[in-house]
C-alpha cells in the first residue's frame, strides 16, 4: 500500500469526539472495547475531513488497545473509510445494474464534465472528489449519487449538473429525489390505495 504525503503530524480526538468515543465504547462489555473500532474510525474520519491518515488509525488502535494492523484491515476493507484524502464533497456515483439501466452513464458523464475530473480524481481546489461506487442501496430511486452523507436520487444529466453547480457555489442543494417524486412514491402521485375505498 502506498503511503500519503498529506499525512498530518499528529491526531487526537477533539473533546466533543472524545466524549462521543467514550459513549460508544460504553455500549460494549468491559474488555470488548475493540468492538468500537468502526464507529471510532468514523469519528476520526469526520474530524479530519473525510479521510483516515495512518496516524489516525494508529490513534484509534492505541485508543482501543488493539494491534494497529487490525485497524488497518478494517479501514481498508470498508469502502466508506477513505485511506486517501478526498475533497470537501465526495461525489460517489453508483454504477451498478439498476442505476446503470436508469442512466448512470449519463450521470457519470455529467459529473466529469461539470467537475472537469475523471473517476477517482480530486479537483485542484480540493472541493470535489469523484468516485464510482457499488450499489448504494437506493435502487428504487436509481440513478443515485451520494455526496458526503446526502443521497441525490432520480438523477439525470441536467439535475446532477444543477446539484453540482449549487455545491460549487457553496449552497446546500436539497437532497433526495430530484425529479419531483416524494421519497420513493410513484412519479406523478400514488397509483394504488387511492380515494377512500
Amino acid at each position, binding site marked *: *500500500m502506498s*503511503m*500519503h504525503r498529506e499525512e498530518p503530524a499528529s491526531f487526537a480526538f477533539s473533546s466533543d469526539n472524545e466524549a462521543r468515543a467514550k459513549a460508544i465504547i460504553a455500549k460494549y462489555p468491559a474488555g470488548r472495547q475493540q468492538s468500537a473500532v468502526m464507529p471510532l474510525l468514523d469519528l476520526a474520519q469526520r474530524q479530519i475531513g473525510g479521510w483516515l491518515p*495512518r496516524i489516525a488509525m494508529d490513534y484509534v488502535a492505541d485508543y482501543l488497545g488493539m*494491534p494497529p*494492523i*487490525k485497524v*488497518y*484491515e478494517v479501514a*481498508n476493507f470498508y469502502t466508506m473509510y477513505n485511506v486517501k484524502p478526498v475533497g470537501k464533497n465526495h461525489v460517489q456515483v453508483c454504477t451498478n445494474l439498476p442505476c446503470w439501466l436508469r442512466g448512470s452513464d449519463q450521470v457519470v458523464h455529467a459529473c466529469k464534465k461539470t467537475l472537469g475530473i475523471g473517476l477517482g480524481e480530486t479537483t485542484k481546489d480540493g472541493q470535489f472528489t469523484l468516485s464510482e461506487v457499488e450499489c448504494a442501496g437506493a435502487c428504487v430511486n436509481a440513478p443515485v449519487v451520494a455526496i458526503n452523507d446526502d443521497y441525490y436520487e432520480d438523477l439525470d444529466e441536467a439535475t446532477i449538473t444543477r446539484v453540482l453547480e449549487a455545491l460549487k457555489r457553496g449552497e446546500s442543494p436539497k437532497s433526495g429525489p430530484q425529479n419531483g417524486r416524494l421519497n420513493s412514491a410513484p412519479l406523478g402521485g400514488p397509483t394504488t390505495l387511492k380515494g377512500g375505498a
Partner: protein
Amino acid sequence: MPKLTIDGREIEVAPGTTIIQAAEVLGIEIPRFCYHERLTIAGNCRMCLVEVEKAPKLVASCSMPVGEGMVVKTATPNVLKARRGVMELMLINHPLDCPICDQGGECDLQDQAVAFGRDRGRFAEAKHAVRQKDFGPLIKAEMTRCIHCTRCIRFSTEVAGVPQLGGIGRGEHMEIDTYVTKALESELSGNLIDLCPVGALTNKPYAFKARPWELKKTESIDALDALGSHIRIDARGAEVMRILPSNCDDLNEEWLGDKSRFSCDGLARQRLDQPYIRENGKLRPASWDEALALAASKLKGARPDQVAAIAGDLACAESMAALKDLLDGLGSPHRDCRQDGARLDPAVRAGYLFNATIAGIEQADALLLVGTNPRKEAPVLNARIRKRWLKGKFPVAAIGPKADLTYRVDHLGTSAALLDAIAKGTHPFAATLKAAQKPMLILGMGALRRQDGAQIQAAARGLAEACGLVKEGWNGFSVLHTAAARVGGLDLGFVPGAGGKDIHGILDGATKGEMAVVYLLGADEIDMSRLGKAFVIYQGHHGDAGAHRADLILPGAAYTEKNATYVNTEGRAQRTTLAVFPPGQAREDWKILRALSDALGKPLPYDSLSQVRARLAAINPVFGQPGKRVGAAWGAFGSPGAVADAALATAIDNYYMTDPIGRASPTMAVSVETFLAGAKPRTGTHG
C-alpha cells in the same frame, strides 16, 4: 465419541475433531492450503472439500466437526471435480513462474495442481499483480504469487505473538501486508517461509541459490541455543545451503528461531581450515604434526597446576569428555564449561536442568520468570509459553528486565531480593504460586552470571520448595540455559576437579601470570585480555575472539560437520548428524584431542566414535540414552547467603549474534542492523 465412516473405513474420534483430522488418522490425505494443524482454522481455500452423505453440498473438511454416523467420501467424481475447479480458480491469479520461483519443487500449489488440477487454464484475461513489498532481510515477499490462505497472518498473530501482518483490502484486491513498510519483528519470522504453501514468502538469503532436489537432507540437532531443536540441514556439496526445522512435538514442534535458521551462511565464512602457529605476533599456517607437537611440548613443559581448559558454548560432549580425560592424564584440575561465568552448582543435576520440560510448560498453571528474557534466549520456548498463556488461566510474573514477551507479564520488579520475599510469603505472588497445581519458575543465565549467582540459585531453590514447585510428579524449577554445550558439560563434570579453579579462578590466575597454558575448546565469549601471558591453544571452527588471541590454533568442526552429542536444557542427550565434512584440514573435535593425547604420549583409551560414546555413557548414564529426556532427583544446591539488591539483567542483548557462527554470518549482520540497531525513523513517506 462419535463414530464415522471415511471412504468406507470406520473410525471413532474425540468429539470436536474435524473431518480432515479424522481422515489424517486413517492415513487418508485430503489436499489443503489454508489448513495447518498448529494454527486456527480459516477454511478459506476450499481445497479440502469432501462429500458428506445427506449434506446438500460439498463441505470443507478442515472446518467441519465430525458427527455421529457421518459418512464421508473423499474421492468421488464430485469431489474431484470440485477440487479441479478450486485449483483452476486458484491459478487464475497465480503467475505460472515456477521456473524462476524458489518454491519450485517443494510447492504445495505445484504438487496439488499436478495431482488435482486441469491440464490447462481457461482464463485468458490479464492476471492480477501486487506491488513489490519489503518484509525485511530474512523474508522475500513475492505477493503476486499469494493465494490468500492467511497462514502467515495466523502464525504471526497466534504463534509468534507479533500481530503485524494483515489482509488489506477486500475481494480480489486483498493483499497480505504489514501496511507500514517494515520487517516482521519476530525471532520466529523464518517459519513463515515454511508455512507459506506457495512461493509468496521465501527465504531471502537463500534466494536463487539451490533447488530442493539438488540438496542432501540431513536430520540433525540445532546447537545455537540450549533447546536442541530438531533441524534438517540441506547441503549441496560441501556447503550448508539452508537449515529448516524438523518436527518434534516435545521440543520445537515445527518451529525454529531465526538465528538457528539463518546463521548457516556463517558456516562458510571466517573458517579455520588449517592449524596456525603464532610467530612474532603473527599467525602462520602450520601442519597438523607441527601444531600437535608444539601443543604437546607446551603442555608437557608446564606444571600440571598451570594448565587450564575452558569449554565454549558450542562444544560437543564428545570433545569435552576427551579434553577432560586429557587434563586428568596431565594432572590438571582446572577446567570449566561455564565460560560466561554462571555460578551454577554442578553437584545436583536437578539444580541446572529445565525440570518442567518444554512440553511440560503446557501443563503449568503459573509461571515466574527470574532474570530471563525467553524471547531472546530461546524464542521457540517462548512460543510454547505463549501457547500456554493463550489457553488462559496462566498468570505470568517476571523479576528482571522489562520486555515485550508476546504475552502479558506481571512485572514484579528487577531486584533479586524479591525471590526471598516470595519464598517467605510476604509478596502477593507467593499466593498465586501456592494456589497453582503446577507452578513453574524459569531461572535465566542473567541471574546466575552475577557475583551472587550461587546465592540466587539457592534463593530460587528456597522459593521452589516454599511455594510447592517441587512435588510428586511435578518439578517446576527450570533453568533456562543459553548455551547448547552447558548441560552436557555439567553432566560429564567439565567443572573444576578437586582443588581446581573455575572460570573466574582461571582468568584471575592467567591475569596474574600463574597459568602457563590455557586450552580454549571453542571458548570465544571470555575476556581474552585477561588471559595474560599464558600460551593459548584455541580449538574451534571460527576465526573469532579466541582465535585472535590464540598462540596455536587447532581447526575443529562446527555442529553441522560432526556426529556429536549435545544435552539440551531439559537434560535430553541428542545427537547431531554430520551433514558436510569440516573444511580443509579441520577435523572432528574429539579426534583432535585423541591425536594430541598421542603426541603427549598418554593416548586416550578410545579410537572410534562408538568408544568415545561408551566412555561418555560410563561417565554419566544420561549419554547412554540419546533422544530420551532423563530427569533428575531434587536435592540441595546453590550456596545460601545474602543476595545483592542489584537489578537482574537478561543474558542476551543481541539475539542474532551469540556465537562465532552468528558473528560470521552476513545475514545475522543485516538482521542486527534491521532489528536492533536503534529503530531508524521510518516515516509514512519512506518508500
